C-alpha cells in the first residue's frame, strides 16, 4: 500500500449518512481483511440514545426476560444520563453470529467509523478467535436462546404468577456467579434442541430425583463420618447446576428457570475473563485500522484529531491518587500491552530479548493473533506484561495484611519488582481470587437433607457482609437447611453460616 496516496477522503463533515457508514465499513473491512482479521458477518444497527439505555439495562442484550433488577438498572442509567453525570457508551457489541453492533444516532461520523473499527472488526474478531469464546459460547444460538428464555419465563409468569417467578429469579441471580462451569466444557446449546429436550428433561429429572430421595428414608442422624460416602462424591463448584439437578422440592418449571439463568451466566463468563484482552484488542485495532485509513488519504486531518481525542480519553489511566481513580483501566492496560507486543516484535531491545526470547523480532501479526486466540486476562498478563510497560505505567504493589497495622509497598517498577508485580496483577484478574471459592461439599441425604457448602479461603480473606442474605436465597432454592463453612487450607473451620440460623452463627476457634 502506497503511503499518502492522493485519494479523496470519504467524508469531510461531521454528520453521518447511511451511505457514509457503508463506505467506511467497506474500507475498514477491506483493511481489516488485509491484516488477516477473521470476523463474523456484521450487523450494524443504528439506535437512539433511549434504545441504548434499554440495551444497557438488559445486560447489553437485544432481548431478555423481564425482571425488576433490569428496571432498577434502567432507572439508574436514565437518571445519571439525564443529569449529564455519565455519557452512554458509544457502542454495544454482542457476541452473536452475525455479530450485532449498536451505533448511536447522536454520534458523529468520526465516532461511527471509530465504533465500526472497534466493535465490528476488533471485538468481532476476538469473539470469533479467542479460545474461551469458542469453547463456552455458541454465537449462532444465543439470540434464539434468549428468545426461548424470554418466552418461557413469560409463560411461567402466566401460569404461576409474576411474584412467584420473580422470587425464584431473585434467588437465581444471587447465585448467578456460581452457575458456571469453570473447567468442564459444556455442550453447545441450540434453541430448537432446548425446546424439544425441555419436556423430556423435566420428566427425567423428576423421576431420577424421586429415586434418590425415595430410597433414603430419613433416619436418626448418625454422626459417624466416613460411614457413608459424601454426596456429591466430588465437591461441585456449579452451585446452580447442583441445585437444578438435586434439589428435592423444586417443580420442573423452576428447574428450567434455574437452567436458563445458568446458561446465560455461562454465556457471559468468558467476557468477564477477557475484559483486558478484549478491549485491548479492539482498541489496538481501531487505532491501527483508522491510521491505515489516514495513510491512504481516505480521512481528513480533522477526522484524525477528533478520533485521537476520543481514543486518548478512552485509554486514559488516572493515577492511584486521582479522585477519578477507579482501579486499573482495562482499556489502558489492554491497549498498551497489545502495542507493546507489536513493539517487541518489530523493534526489540536487549531487555525484550532477554524477557521474551520467543517473540522478540517475530512477525507481529502472527504473534498478536496467537496471543488473542490462546489466552485469557490472567495468563495474558502473566505471559506478556513487559518490564518496559510496568515502568511506563509506574505500577507498584501494595500489601494489605489485616493482621498488621500498616500497608506496605512490597514491589515497585524496578528490577526486583517486575516479576512480583506481574504475578500480582495477573492474579487480580483470576476470577477464582476475586470471588470467594465456594463449593457444594455434602448433602445429608440420610438425615435432614442439610446442604453443606464450603468456602475455601484464599489468603485468609473472610466472606463479606451479604453472605447471610445470599444464604437465604440458597435456602429458598434448596428447601432445607443450608450451611456454609469458611475453611482454611489446613482444614480448620473459621466461621460458619447457616440458614435458617441455628444457634446463631458460631465463631469457631481457629
Amino acid at each position, binding site marked *: 500500500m502506497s503511503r499518502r496516496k492522493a485519494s479523496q477522503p470519504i467524508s469531510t463533515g461531521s454528520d453521518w449518512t*447511511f451511505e457514509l457508514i457503508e463506505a467506511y465499513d467497506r474500507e475498514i473491512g477491506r483493511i481489516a481483511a488485509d491484516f488477516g482479521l477473521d470476523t463474523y*458477518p*456484521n*450487523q*450494524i*444497527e*443504528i*439506535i437512539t440514545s433511549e*434504545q441504548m439505555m*434499554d440495551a444497557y*439495562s*438488559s445486560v447489553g442484550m437485544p432481548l431478555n426476560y*423481564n*425482571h*425488576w*433488577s433490569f*428496571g*432498577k438498572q*434502567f432507572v439508574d442509567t*436514565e*437518571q445519571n444520563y439525564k443529569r449529564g453525570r455519565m455519557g452512554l457508551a458509544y457502542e454495544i457489541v454482542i457476541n452473536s453470529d452475525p455479530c450485532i453492533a449498536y451505533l448511536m444516532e447522536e454520534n458523529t461520523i468520526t465516532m461511527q467509523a471509530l465504533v465500526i473499527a472497534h466493535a465490528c472488526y476488533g471485538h468481532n474478531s476476538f469473539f470469533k478467535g479467542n479460545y474461551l469464546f469458542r469453547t463456552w459460547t455458541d454465537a449462532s444460538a444465543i439470540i434464539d436462546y434468549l428468545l426461548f428464555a424470554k418466552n418461557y419465563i413469560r409463560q411461567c409468569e402466566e401460569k404461576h404468577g409474576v411474584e412467584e417467578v*420473580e422470587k425464584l429469579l431473585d434467588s437465581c441471580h*444471587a447465585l*448467578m*456467579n456460581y452457575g458456571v462451569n469453570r473447567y468442564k466444557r459444556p455442550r453447545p446449546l441450540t434453541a430448537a434442541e432446548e425446546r424439544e429436550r425441555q419436556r423430556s428433561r423435566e420428566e427425567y429429572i423428576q423421576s431420577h430425583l424421586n429415586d434418590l430421595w425415595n430410597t433414603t428414608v430419613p433416619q436418626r442422624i448418625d454422626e459417624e463420618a466416613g460411614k457413608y460416602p459424601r454426596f456429591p462424591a466430588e465437591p461441585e463448584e456449579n452451585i446452580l447446576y447442583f441445585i437444578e439437578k438435586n434439589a428435592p422440592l423444586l417443580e420442573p418449571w423452576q428447574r428450567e428457570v434455574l437452567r436458563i439463568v445458568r446458561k446465560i451466566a455461562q454465556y457471559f463468563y468468558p467476557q468477564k475473563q477477557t475484559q483486558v484482552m478484549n478491549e485491548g484488542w479492539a482498541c489496538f485495532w481501531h487505532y491501527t485500522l483508522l491510521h491505515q485509513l489516514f495513510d491512504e488519504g481516505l480521512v481528513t486531518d480533522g477526522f484524525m484529531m477528533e478520533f485521537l481525542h476520543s481514543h486518548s480519553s478512552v485509554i486514559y*489511566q488516572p493515577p*492511584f491518587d*486521582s*479522585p477519578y*481513580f477507579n*482501579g486499573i483501566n482495562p482499556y*489502558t492496560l489492554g491497549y498498551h500491552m497489545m502495542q507493546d507486543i507489536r513493539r517487541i516484535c518489530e523493534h526489540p531491545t536487549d531487555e525484550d530479548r532477554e524477557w521474551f526470547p520467543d517473540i522478540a523480532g517475530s512477525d507481529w501479526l502472527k504473534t498478536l493473533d496467537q496471543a488473542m486466540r490462546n489466552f485469557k486476562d490472567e495468563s495474558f498478563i502473566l505471559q506478556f506484561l513487559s518490564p518496559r510497560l510496568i515502568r511506563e*505505567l*509506574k*505500577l*507498584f*504493589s*501494595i*500489601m*494489605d*495484611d*489485616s493482621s498488621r*497495622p*500498616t*500497608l*506496605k*509497598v512490597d514491589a*515497585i517498577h524496578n528490577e526486583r519488582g517486575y516479576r512480583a*508485580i506481574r504475578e*500480582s496483577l495477573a*492474579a*487480580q484478574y483470576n476470577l477464582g481470587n476475586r*470471588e470467594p471459592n465456594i463449593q457444594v461439599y455434602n448433602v445429608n441425604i440420610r438425615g435432614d437433607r442439610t446442604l453443606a457448602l464450603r468456602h475455601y479461603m484464599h*489468603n485468609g480473606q*473472610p*466472606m*463479606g457482609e*451479604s453472605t447471610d442474605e*445470599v444464604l437465604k*436465597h440458597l435456602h429458598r432454592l434448596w428447601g432445607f437447611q443450608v450451611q456454609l463453612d469458611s475453611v482454611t487450607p489446613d482444614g480448620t473451620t473459621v466461621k460458619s453460616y447457616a440458614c435458617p440460623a441455628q444457634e446463631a452463627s458460631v465463631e469457631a476457634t481457629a
Partner: protein
Amino acid sequence: MSYIIDRRENAKKKSTVNRQRFLRRYKQHIKKAVEEAIHDRSIRDIDQGGQVTIPKRDISEPVFHHGEGGLRHKIFPGNKEFVEGDEFKRPEGGGGGAGQGKASNQGEGEDEFTFNISQEEFLDFMFEDLELPWMVRKQLKDATSFETRRAGFTSSGSPEKLHIVRSLRAAHARRIALTDKDVRKQIRVLRKELWALEETPASPERTEKIDALRAQIAVLEKSSRKLPFLDDFDLRYTNLVRVPLPSSKAVMFCIMDVSGSMTQSVKDIAKRFFILLYLFLNRNYKQIEVVFVRHHTHAKEVDEQEFFYSRETGGTIVSSALSMSADIIDSRYPPEDWNIYIAQASDGDNWDGDSATCSKILTERILPKTQYYAYVEITTGPHQNLWHEYEHVHEAFEERFAMQQITDAGEIYPVFRRLFEKRTEGAHEPS
C-alpha cells in the same frame, strides 16, 4: 459483508415493564416519598412528578463476595515517590480494604439510590386505592360512553359487515322457495321415462319420443335455471347497535370556611386539603362536576380561581353555606341523576346558635340526598361547637357522614386517605 439496519423507529420503551416492576417492588418507599412531597411542597406544584430516594442497602442484590480482612496484594498505577518497603497508615474510610484509592470509589455519598417518577406516576401513587364512597350508577341520560353490541342481522348495511354464511343460506332458501315443486317433480318423471325408453330397442317412433322428451326437459330446466344464484335480496349484514352505558355522574361540593377565625395557616391547610381533593377528582373521575362554596357570614358560589385565591373574609355562619348547597342541589342536581358528595372544611368555630340550624339542614335537606359527606375540622385546640353538633349527625348517619380532625399540615394526606379509602362493596364501617 455487513448489514446496516436502521432501528431507530423500533420499539423504544423496551424497559417499561422492568421499570414498572421495579416501581411496584419499591412501592412502600415511593409512597413515603410521595407523602413527604405533599406537605413539603407549595400548593402550586403539589402535583408535579418527583424524586424518590431509596437507601442503597434496601435495593442491593446480594452476591457472595469477600469481606475485609486477610492478606491481599493490589497493583496501582502512577507511582510517584514510593519505594519498596515503604509503610504507611491505612487511609481513612477505606477501612483497610485495599489501600489507597479504594476510598474514592467507596465514597460515602453513594448510600442512596435516587430516581425520578413522572407526574402521572406521582399522582397514581398519591391516589392509589382511593375512591368516592357509595357511588352508584344513575340515569342513562347524558351518557357519553357507549358499547357496541351485536344485534342480529339486517338486510342493509355496509359491505364490510356482509355476513356470507347468512347471505348464502338466504339465497338457498329463496331458490328452493321459488322453484316450483311440481316442475322439479315433472323433470324427474320425464327423466325416468327417458331412461326407460332408452332401454327399449331402437325404432323411428322411439327416436321421436326421445327427442320430444328431451325438448320438454330442456324447457323445464331452463325455467328453473332462470333463478339467480344470489340476489340483492339475499344479502344479510351483521347488525351492530350502540348501547348507552349507565354513567356514574357525580358532583362534589367543596365548602370552605374563610371567616376571620380561620388563621392563615388554617386556611392553608384547608386549601391543601381541597387541592388534593380536586386533583383526585379530576384524575380519577371523568364525569364529575365540582361546586365551590366559600362562606363567612354569607355563602357564595365561586369558581376555582376565587375559591383558592380570594382573600375576602368576615364572621362565621356555617348554615349559610349549607342552605346554599341544599338550594343548589334542589335546583341543579336532582339526586336521582347525580351522586352527590360534599366536603366541608372549617375550624369548627360557629356563630352561637347556628350549629343547631346546621345539623337541621344537614339531616333534613342534605344528607338524605347525598352519598357521602366529609367534614374536616382544622384546629389544634379543643373541639368547637360545630364538632359537637356534628357528632350527633354522625350517630344518625354513620355511613354517609364522616368527620376527621386535622391539626397540622402533616396530617392532611393521612386524613384524606382515611376519608376516601376504598371500601369493599357493600361493606359497612364498623360502628
